[in-house]
């Protein structure tokens, strides 16, 4: 039997038009979603991240512009995900004129409704950082994984219209990961045998994430045995890869992430021995590693792309250090948010990156917008997410390696990869 959705007086008033037409439309859609999901009531959210800037078709533009015409304004601080254009370097994008215009209109509509023009899949890097326990409505799979896992805020996977309607109404369906009981880990990943020499390296995390998504699907896992000093960027990479292969929206890392001071805490009480445990072995990790490369026995590379999710300032610093002033001989794209790009200009890194041949792509990325040279070839990346999406979205074969591997390969024009063992 389906239990009815109960609304507050304010929510009912909004539904009846007290807040204007767009507000009523938004609330109707949130209510419809809540009924479809079986939620008993709505939850008030403190922020939103809208994924709806990608142009799938003109219906999305109609939807956004309809809300603008109806007086739509976001009710909570709201950031925007990547669009289909690099608004600061439009000449870099090779899209057709109609798509370009419609994509721009869609982005403009959300800005007009009061969303902040961040145009990044990593809003948490440009000042949007909800705190532990905060109820939010975020879209974009890596951003959802990050805000839930690394910040301990609470969101479901919002996208396509519902994210915007939550932002306008200030409400979300109270279900799923908004609730304590669904945030507890139901599977333990025993990674205690992984040597520190591997788990302290950035290159490990997209592979771990790729494996995790395939191994657990939508289940909430707690990973035991990673270093206490595991960085935000490493967790970002882990979550992004896991969200790509398995729709993971929340994971815990014992001793590292805020809801998991221990494995016991992550499972929410009860005996750890009663919870399903998967021991991570090289036999499981190696297939995930090889899955990230589709190029077979490539010896040359035609382009490098990094920055999925968008590069942080720390990652740019590592990139500049790795290049060490040398010229790159293949096209090298680093994708990031415009706010981060501004920081690069302020600290002089932008000039240095330009000098050595790095193209900084802003507001978007190379797998959602045609930026890579046409004709395909072999793309190298340090991103699990790029490795997952590049073949179908860009027509390139892909080779996965560390950031240092990507740089050495781009300097020499030939594939260079650290073949240190992934076995133990």
């Amino acid at each position, binding site marked *: 039997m389906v239990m009815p959705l109960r609304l507050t007086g304010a929510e009912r008033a909004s539904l009846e038009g007290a807040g204007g037409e767009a507000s009523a439309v938004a609330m109707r*859609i949130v209510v419809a979603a809540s009924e479809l999901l079986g939620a008993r009531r709505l939850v008030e959210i403190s922020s939103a991240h809208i994924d709806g800037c990608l142009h799938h078709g003109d219906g999305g533009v109609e939807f956004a512009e309809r809300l603008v015409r109806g007086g739509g304004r976001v009710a909570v601080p709201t950031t925007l995900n990547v669009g289909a254009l690099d608004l600061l370097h439009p000449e870099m994008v090779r899209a057709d004129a109609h798509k370009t215009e419609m994509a721009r209109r869609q982005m403009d509509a959300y800005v007009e409704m009061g969303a902040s023009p961040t145009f990044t899949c990593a809003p948490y890097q440009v000042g949007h950082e909800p705190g532990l326990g905060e109820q939010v409505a975020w879209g974009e799979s890596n951003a959802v994984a990050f805000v839930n896992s690394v910040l301990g805020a609470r969101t479901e996977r919002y996208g396509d219209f519902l994210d915007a309607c939550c932002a306008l109404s200030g409400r979300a369906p109270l279900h799923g990961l908004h609730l304590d009981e669904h945030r507890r880990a139901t599977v333990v990943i025993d990674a205690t045998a992984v040597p520190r020499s591997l788990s302290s390296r950035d290159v490990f995390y997209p592979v771990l994430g790729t494996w995790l998504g395939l191994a657990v699907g939508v289940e909430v896992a707690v990973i035991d045995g990673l270093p206490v000093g595991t960085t935000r960027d490493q967790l970002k990479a882990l979550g992004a890869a896991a969200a790509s292969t398995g729709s993971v929206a929340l994971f815990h890392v014992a001793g590292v992430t805020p809801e998991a001071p221990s494995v016991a805490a992550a499972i929410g009480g009860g005996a750890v021995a009663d919870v399903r445990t998967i021991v991570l072995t090289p036999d499981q990790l190696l297939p995930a590693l090889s899955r990230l490369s589709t190029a077979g026995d490539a010896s040359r590379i035609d382009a490098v792309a990094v920055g999925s999710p968008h590069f942080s300032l720390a990652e740019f610093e590592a990139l500049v250090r790795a290049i060490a002033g040398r010229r790159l001989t293949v096209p090298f794209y680093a994708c990031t948010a415009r706010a981060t790009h501004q920081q690069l200009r302020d600290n002089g890194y932008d000039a240095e990156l330009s000098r050595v041949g790095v193209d900084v792509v802003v507001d978007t990325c190379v797998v959602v917008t045609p930026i890579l040279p046409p004709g395909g070839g072999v793309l190298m990346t340090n991103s699990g997410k790029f490795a997952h999406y590049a073949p179908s979205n860009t027509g390139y074969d892909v080779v996965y390696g560390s950031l240092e591997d990507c740089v050495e390969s781009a300097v020499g024009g030939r594939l260079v990869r650290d073949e240190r063992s992934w076995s133990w």
Partner: protein
Amino acid sequence: MRGEIVDPRHPEYGRSIAGTVLLVPSAVGSSSSSAIMLELMREGRAPAAILMGRADAILALGVVVGRELGYASLPVLEVDPVALRDWDDGTIVDVGVDGLVSRADGP
């Protein structure tokens, strides 16, 4: 957006779903399902009805939004997947305004 199945691994690859009664036994799982459904409705290439064995909220939400934008809508019903097992491809289906789903050619 033609309403054709484009996944080469799908058994109905190349088939158009426009104007059909589409049976979806379990959630498609794509986070783009809402946007895709909206575009199909906008272009008049949506299924005539969708019968879901288990609710795919994302797919259904696309229909809700299409309705809000005034596109020709379609019924989306959650049905017992067991009841649909004997309905072969090509079966003519009646979907009534009261939500009653039946075969047009018999029991």
